[in-house]
């Protein structure tokens, strides 16, 4: 059953159909939110909130081909931005010191994973959203433009800037033979 059929069923209040819709999109939403927030618990809350907002507005929503995922990702991003604004600076400091301890105890692969995580999280939010949707979730530039409600050229430039930043930060892990 595609998104359009699922949404038509959910519109009438059919919880079983809505469950199929949630199960089809929940993992992508949680992964996206986790990479925006670096907090799996908050990411699950954000995904849950996105689905609840869709459920509450289901009678007003008209599903066009392929835009349900874009809508859900957009809602998740907005919830994440609200969450970041509400988070206290002391929370961020505590998490940073915890992360440093983890790095000391980590294996080499975990060091790389943490370096990538920090590099992605350090990107400006707009670039990070584009990089995550493109690099991790496999959305096309057109789908990202629809999700983030911005021009296609903006998506391309944000992806380019993000990739170039990561290229500089992750240089120590690059194969020397492939460098300039």
């Amino acid at each position, binding site marked *: 059953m595609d998104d359009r059929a699922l949404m038509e069923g959910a519109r009438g209040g059919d919880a079983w159909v809505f469950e199929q819709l*949630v199960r089809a999109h929940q993992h992508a939403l949680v992964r996206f939110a986790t990479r925006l927030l670096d907090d799996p618990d908050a990411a699950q809350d954000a995904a849950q909130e996105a689905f609840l907002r869709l459920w509450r507005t289901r009678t007003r929503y008209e599903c066009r081909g392929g835009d349900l995922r874009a809508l859900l990702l957009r809602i998740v991003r907005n919830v994440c931005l609200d969450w970041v604004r509400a988070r206290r600076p002391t929370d961020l400091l505590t998490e940073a010191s915890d992360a440093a301890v983890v790095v000391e105890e980590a294996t080499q692969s975990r060091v790389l994973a943490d370096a990538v995580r920090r590099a992605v999280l350090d990107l400006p939010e707009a670039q990070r959203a584009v990089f995550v949707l493109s690099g991790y979730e496999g959305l096309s530039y057109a789908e990202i433009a629809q999700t983030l409600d911005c021009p296609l050229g903006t998506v391309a430039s944000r992806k380019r800037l993000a990739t170039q930043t990561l290229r500089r930060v992750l240089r120590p892990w690059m194969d020397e033979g492939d460098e300039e």
Partner: protein
Amino acid sequence: MTCDDVMSRLVAFIDGELPPRDTAVVEAHLAHCADCAGEWNALRQVSRLAGAWPVDGADVWSAVRREIAAPDTGDVLDIVRSLQAEVRALRAEVADLRRQLAIRPSIPRHTGSLLPDLSGRQVTRPLI
């Protein structure tokens, strides 16, 4: 296409987002330009390295189900509003009926009670 032109298109080229004509030009340029080819390889490695940060999805349906099973505040408010409108309509209808009764002299004025006024009368119980 100059090296700067190619460099600015490399990420979109790697993502398969360039128009076919630009794709062909970039491919031809990379075949003979070592600098651009080196940058291309470095940028390709970013995608590979990014995969070192795995993130799992999660099942949120149970939590969503609990929420949608709870009474929907919006629905309850709609019902309350509907009932309030119905009460207003009934009140208007009753007021109209009262006015009609008041202007018809042959009908006694309504006492407000649905039972006959038996005050002052002796009530006799039926034998059976």
